[in-house]
């Protein structure tokens, strides 16, 4: 086997491999100069610089191979636990994200009507002044709450939150309610933390409920899964589709959509009823077991079989196998299981399942606990009296403020209830595509007096905005050091740095710079007390006594780890709460009870959602490298069903729901339940500024109906039912 090269060797080899390049050098750019001083680049400006990927939330560490001021190859950083030296297809294609010919490289100001894509280039000063002016106008006329801020969580989120909170608006939208609110809220209630860490090293038995790790790739975890299966770990996989993960599973259970809850309740029924749970663990570390026990008595496998369409014997056997394998078993908490309103209780059932067989400490651990990063000084935020438009917490008492319920936010804007919003500030987010019912989102947009976006491409949201502020791509900028303990950047006890590996092209700037510029213009300088990006990061590092230069060389800094007892949970009882008193008090089920999901009428199908390995949500469809190797998008339909409907592979079909209709190409396949159809989201872009993605496929956002779980605020994406006919 070839020796794996350490990162240090990379640097040495980088210098040797590239040798003498062009004699004429550009005037050494600032980045190259710094990198040369740090020892990365050799005299010919070639070498490897460590940074972080941003093609998905896994944020792997990478090594960027740079030659003559250009990124020529990306490799995984062996030191980063999420990459271990590898990059997934999107990570490898990240170059084309930076070098996408459709990049927005200067500030743009709209000149035509919204949606026409007519913009003029402007200077940063003009654009920033305009944004600040508009925001202040809205603040003065309608109050700061009339300005809505939303961003998909990223490393600059703390500064984004600074901006909106200092501005005085309560209206904060993230992507989380479209993603994993069900899971994180359930974990918070049960374990007091958003997402415990999973450890595959001792795993013997794994249940995945819809977590399609082979296609919704999380680099290292996908690798861990395949290695686990490789060494004989039993994988039970619940999904109405035969995905690439199903192909690796020991057993694929084509469960009826929306019924994962029944499956897991029956699991609990068997494990508790047959005394297969870990009695000492339950006695020592949990509260509420008796309530769970009596609640699940009625949920027999026979009962579940009728609902889930999985044989009772199978459910019973899996429950016994799972308990027997414990504590080396794991029911994966997934993102949101089946995407139905009852997914929250399903997640609760999963947490209980793991807890009662005592997986804690073998396959589940507390989330990373490194601390110690500093931050610039800032005063307290102004008091906010206005209600949040998204109903948190007055309609959704259990949704953390930092998550929000973005689809509710959108609906409130349309309804102008409890009040009208007038401005929307969007960073690194594509709500026009991501929120269900695209028409309604565009209606919300139409209500805005002013929309400003920060992005690298003219994606759909940017296309409909008034001012576009170009961000430098992730290979061209700094971001704050990642916060450990944050489920989206936790990597044990190391904080990795994102640093520019090339000069930003055009006039792209980091969002750290943009927020400070805006902050200064809005009179909020106190909340942005840093000179520039490097100054900010140095302030983060100050408590650790480490300089940015030292971190740059290594790519990361180790944080002091507090040795906590893993058997302590930050719940109100200090133990694992199998029963949630707070849910109980609020009138919801404190222990999971069966909630019958809605089902399609005759002639309708469940419209499932999911992921593909070569795309990340709604932002990557324009990447030419990913497009080259991707499958053509379309609507999956079961072969037999298509035959009975007289539909053939490749036919254009009309898909209609309660909120809209689309035309999409049909993909006839055996790999899906007869009562389901499936579209991979992310296609059907409206922006003509995406020359590769425009015209490619159709968008399921146009037909998805908005259903929100009242407890976690999670959007039930698969609760949409559609008819399918030949176009």
């Amino acid at each position, binding site marked *: 086997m070839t020796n794996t090269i350490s990162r240090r060797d990379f640097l040495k080899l980088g210098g040797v491999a590239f040798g003498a390049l062009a004699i004429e050098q550009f005037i050494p750019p600032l980045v190259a100069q710094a990198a040369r001083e740090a020892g990365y680049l050799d005299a010919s400006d070639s070498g490897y610089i460590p940074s972080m990927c941003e093609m998905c939330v896994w944020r792997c560490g990478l090594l960027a191979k740079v030659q003559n001021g250009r990124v020529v190859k990306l490799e995984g950083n062996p030191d980063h636990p999420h990459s271990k030296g590898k990059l997934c297809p999107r990570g490898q294609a990240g170059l084309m994200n930076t070098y996408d010919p459709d990049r927005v490289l200067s500030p743009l100001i709209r000149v035509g009507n919204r949606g026409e894509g007519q913009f003029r280039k402007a200077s940063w000063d003009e654009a920033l002044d305009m944004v600040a002016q508009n925001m202040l106008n809205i603040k003065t006329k309608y109050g700061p709450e009339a300005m809505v801020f939303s961003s998909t969580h990223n490393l600059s989120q703390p500064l984004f939150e600074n901006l909106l909170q200092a501005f005085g608006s309560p209206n904060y939208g993230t992507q989380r309610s479209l993603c994993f609110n069900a899971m994180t809220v359930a974990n918070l209630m049960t374990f007091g933390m958003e997402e415990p860490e999973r450890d595959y090293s001792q795993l013997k038995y794994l249940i995945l409920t819809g977590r399609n790790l082979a*296609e919704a790739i999380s680099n290292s975890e996908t690798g861990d899964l395949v290695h686990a299966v490789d060494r004989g770990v039993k994988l039970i996989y619940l999904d109405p589709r035969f995905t690439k993960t199903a192909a690796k599973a020991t057993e694929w259970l*084509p469960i009826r959509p929306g019924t994962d809850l029944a499956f897991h309740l029956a699991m609990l029924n068997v494990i508790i009823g047959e005394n297969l749970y870990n009695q000492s663990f339950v006695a020592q570390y949990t509260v509420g077991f008796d309530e769970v026990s009596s609640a699940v008595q009625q949920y027999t496998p026979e009962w579940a079989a009728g609902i889930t369409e999985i044989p009772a014997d199978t459910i019973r056997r899996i429950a016994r196998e799972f308990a027997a394998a414990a504590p080396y078993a794991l029911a994966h908490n997934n993102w949101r299981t089946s995407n139905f309103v009852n997914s929250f209780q399903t997640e609760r059932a999963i947490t209980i399942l793991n807890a009662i067989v005592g997986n804690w400490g073998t396959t589940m651990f507390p989330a990373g606990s490194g601390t110690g990063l500093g931050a610039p000084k800032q005063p307290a935020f102004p008091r906010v009296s206005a209600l949040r438009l998204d109903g948190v917490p007055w309609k959704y008492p259990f949704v953390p403020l930092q998550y929000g319920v973005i689809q509710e936010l959108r609906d409130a804007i349309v309804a102008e209830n409890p009040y009208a919003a007038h401005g929307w500030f969007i960073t690194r987010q594509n709500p026009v595509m991501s929120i269900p019912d695209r028409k309604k989102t565009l209606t919300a947009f139409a209500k805005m007096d002013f929309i400003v976006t920060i992005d690298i491409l003219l994606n759909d949201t940017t296309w409909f905005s008034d001012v576009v502020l170009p961000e430098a791509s992730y290979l061209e900028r700094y971001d704050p050091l990642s916060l450990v303990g944050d489920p989206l950047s936790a990597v044990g006890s190391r904080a990795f740095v994102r640093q520019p590996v090339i000069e930003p092209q055009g006039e792209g700037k980091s969002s750290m710079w943009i927020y400070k510029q805006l902050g200064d213009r809005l009179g909020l300088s106190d909340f942005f007390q840093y000179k520039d990006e490097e100054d900010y990061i140095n302030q983060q590092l100050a408590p650790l006594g480490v300089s940015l230069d030292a971190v740059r060389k290594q790519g990361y800094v180790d944080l002091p780890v507090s040795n906590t007892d893993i058997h302590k949970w930050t719940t109100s009882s200090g133990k694992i709460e199998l029963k949630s008193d707070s849910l109980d008090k609020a009138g919801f089920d404190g222990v999971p009870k069966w909630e019958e999901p809605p089902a399609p009428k005759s002639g309708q199908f469940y419209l499932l959602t999911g992921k593909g*390995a*070569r795309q990340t949500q709604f932002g990557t469809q324009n990447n030419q490298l990913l497009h080259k190797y991707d499958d053509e998008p379309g609507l999956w339909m079961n072969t037999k069903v298509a035959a009975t409907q007289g539909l053939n592979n490749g036919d254009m079909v009309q898909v209609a729901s309660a909120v809209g209709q689309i035309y999409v190409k049909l993909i006839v396949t055996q790999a899906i339940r007869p009562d389901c159809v499936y579209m991979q989201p992310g296609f059907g872009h409206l922006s003509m500024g995406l020359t590769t993605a425009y015209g490619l496929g159709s968008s399921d956002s146009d037909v998805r109906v908005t259903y929100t779980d009242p407890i976690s605020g999670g959007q039930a994406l698969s609760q949409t039912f559609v008819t399918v006919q030949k176009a």
Partner: protein
Amino acid sequence: MTDIQNIKHKAFLFDATRCIDCRACMIACSVENNIPVDKTRIWVAGVGLMGEYPNLGRVSMVYHCMHCNEPDCLSACPVGAYSQRPDGPVLYDHNKCIGCRYCMNACPFGVPHFDFNKGLLQGAFIDKCTMCPQRIDIGLEPACVATCPTDALMFGERTDLLTEAHSRITAYPTRYINHVYGETENGGTSYLILSHVPFAELGLPNLGSTPVRDISEAAMALTIPFALAWGAVLTGVTVGVHQFNKRKEQLAEAEAKAKPEETK
């Protein structure tokens, strides 16, 4: 004949049970080797989804170049555009290529591919996987191997990989087809494959251990001897016929001379 088991080449091991068809390898290869957007050096083939709902299976096969121990492309190319390094990689020099595409016929695996959509000025050549010599020469793995998130692709000494492959089969006899494809096929290849489905479903041909090129090369080697022999035969016949005719003429002349005396 080389000892197939002990060929000292660098090689790949592809384990189809680990491949999730994510195609990171292809993207990494495209970037590493500056491949234009309308070409690729590695690709997916294979039946993909198998069976009928709900009894389904899946396989994906990543095609590279087999880097045969006895490459047919190298044997077939009239202008010698292919070469093989002592450590195994089969390389190709597009400066020599005339675009005859014989190598495409010769390769039993359908590896070399051609620019059918390029004219003379743009350059229409063969292209194929080179085992990333620019990486392996500095101790890195080929781009595809380095990035594979599930270690479906491994790289190293062929003998080591054969040992690894066989130990996997032994450890999980019900999982794998009991054969390492490429161990002996075509005289041994340096792209070794483990699979859970018959290799034919991956689009791999059924080949024996005799290198495919042997017969062709043996026939070519007969060219000169045959030419000399045949030329000698023809010369002999020519001379013989000439002599025969001359003799006939002489006899006829002698007869003619004799005849007039009789009629006197």
